[in-house]
């Protein structure tokens, strides 16, 4: 089995290819947000590096968010088209799952926290379990103060990671027993995506390209306003 992974839900964009032997090749860029420009050349690059043909890929994994809407959709649209074009199934994985998975050996409560812009962050909580991590709260959007208050109430040792953790460092520093994740954990990575999706592929937890659903969490502003105006909120 050869898996292509595409990840573009944050300021970083990356592509990786993996097999039963683990990640064969990966690349990423966190320079300016040129996700749409980068993905296709990155796919060509990782295939060359791994010395495989695109037609050998048998499953496509993609980060389904939450994240920055435009970048997220660019990754999903690219991945769907690759899977559709090759006639292969897909696996969708949450960006927060990827963030937590990269810190899977921590004994602390693992809390990925990505910048959602407009003064908010996306976050969820995880615990390390044999063979990976287990999500203990649902992905949601918070203001940094809300999340800090929530973590303070946990009363346990916390590993907070992600570009959102870094951006709002001041608000989170008030939480005791909190450790900030290293810079290498600021963004979900295509490497983690391929590693985490691999066991799912072995269990055949596949979806069709048309069944991939982005995890937006936040409604479009216009829809929020419309519901408020109509008293439907």
């Amino acid at each position, binding site marked *: 089995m050869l898996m292509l992974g595409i990840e573009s839900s944050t300021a970083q964009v990356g592509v990786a290819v993996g097999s039963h032997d683990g990640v064969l090749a990966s690349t990423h860029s966190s320079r300016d947000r*040129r996700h*749409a*420009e*980068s*993905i*296709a*050349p990155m*796919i*060509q690059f990782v295939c060359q590096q791994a010395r495989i043909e*695109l*037609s050998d890929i048998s499953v496509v994994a993609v980060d389904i968010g939450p994240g920055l*809407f*435009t970048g997220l*959709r*660019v*990754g*999903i*649209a*690219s*991945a*769907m*088209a*690759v899977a*559709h*074009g*090759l006639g292969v199934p897909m696996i969708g994985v949450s960006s927060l799952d990827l963030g937590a998975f990269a810190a899977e050996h921590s004994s602390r409560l693992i809390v990925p926290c990505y910048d959602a812009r407009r003064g908010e962050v996306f976050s969820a909580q995880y615990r390390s379990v044999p063979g990976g991590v287990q999500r203990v709260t649902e992905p949601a959007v918070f203001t940094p103060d809300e999340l800090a208050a929530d973590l303070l109430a946990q009363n346990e040792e916390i590993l907070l990671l992600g570009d959102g953790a870094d951006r709002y460092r001041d608000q989170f520093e008030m939480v005791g027993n909190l450790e900030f994740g290293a810079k290498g954990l600021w963004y979900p990575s295509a490497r983690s995506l391929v590693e985490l999706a691999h066991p799912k592929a072995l269990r055949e937890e596949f979806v069709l*390209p*048309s069944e991939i659903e*982005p995890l*937006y969490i936040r409604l*479009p*502003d*216009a*829809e929020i306003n*419309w519901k408020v105006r109509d008293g439907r909120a």
Partner: protein
Amino acid sequence: MGDLILGIETSCDETAAAVVRDGHDVLSNVVSSQIDIHARYGGVVPEVASRAHVEMMMPVVAEAMVEGGVDKDDLAAVACTVGPGLIGSLLIGVSAAKSLALVWGKPFIAVNHLEAHLYASFLEKPDMELPAVILLVSGGHTMLVLMEGHGQYRLLGQTLDDAAGEAYDKVARYLGLGYPGGPIIDKMAADGDPEAVRFPRAMAKDGYDFSFSGLKTSVVNYVRKNPDVADVDIAASFQEAVVDVLLTKAQRAVHEFDAKGLCLAGGVAANSLLRARTLELAEADGVAGFVPARSMCTDNAAMVAAAGWWRMASDGPAPMDQGANSSLALPTYA
């Protein structure tokens, strides 16, 4: 069997894919419109449009291939609109189209949305004689173009403020008629008196540029002062003023540049008065008049595939790091 091009279009609020042979023979033309989704907001909401595009993109492509009876191996290239338009919407089509081209081993062709509208005429009339004056009118654009050859355009004039379609939407919103304004006003105008109110024809005499914001303002002012005048008469008089200005300039261009034809393009070209007058005028002037089918005037991917076929021959494939450009201009000279 000729060159089959898969065209993809996501620049605004239509998710579309089509397969066209040799720039004119339409094998399939699938359009998933979001008009109903945006109607409640009174206009296109970019984030809402992008969400719908990502959901519809692959089903629309799949349907275009099946309906055209085409296998990926039959395709000569994948063409996609790269601008102008809503950036978040454009990027979905571009990302999907590049990925398909990549995995199918086909060239990727970057298409300018405005040029694609101009090519709607060639879908039905591939042997159209040039030069032709093309009036491109839509919700986002109002341009008078002299097409002298394939890929050779002279921009004679364009709107200095609102696009013609935008003026329709704004007047419809002011009158409380709903969205989108074009088809609604067009329908009402059929029952009204176009001579009821003489609205101003801005800049009708000077140059080839247009201005519609003054017309919109005078409609609003008139209705405020004369609340008893029937909406159908306002609609008919407004439409008369718009069409009059558009075609006065188009006709002058036909004469000045000795054009062999006069064509319409863009969403507003679906307007019945504009269509009828264009044909009348062309006939009176002894030039070929051409109005594409309504389905080819509004955004679609058949026109993208048609323009892509010409672009492939002139420019070849676009690179895999091609992005989208929300303000891409029509490639013109002079």
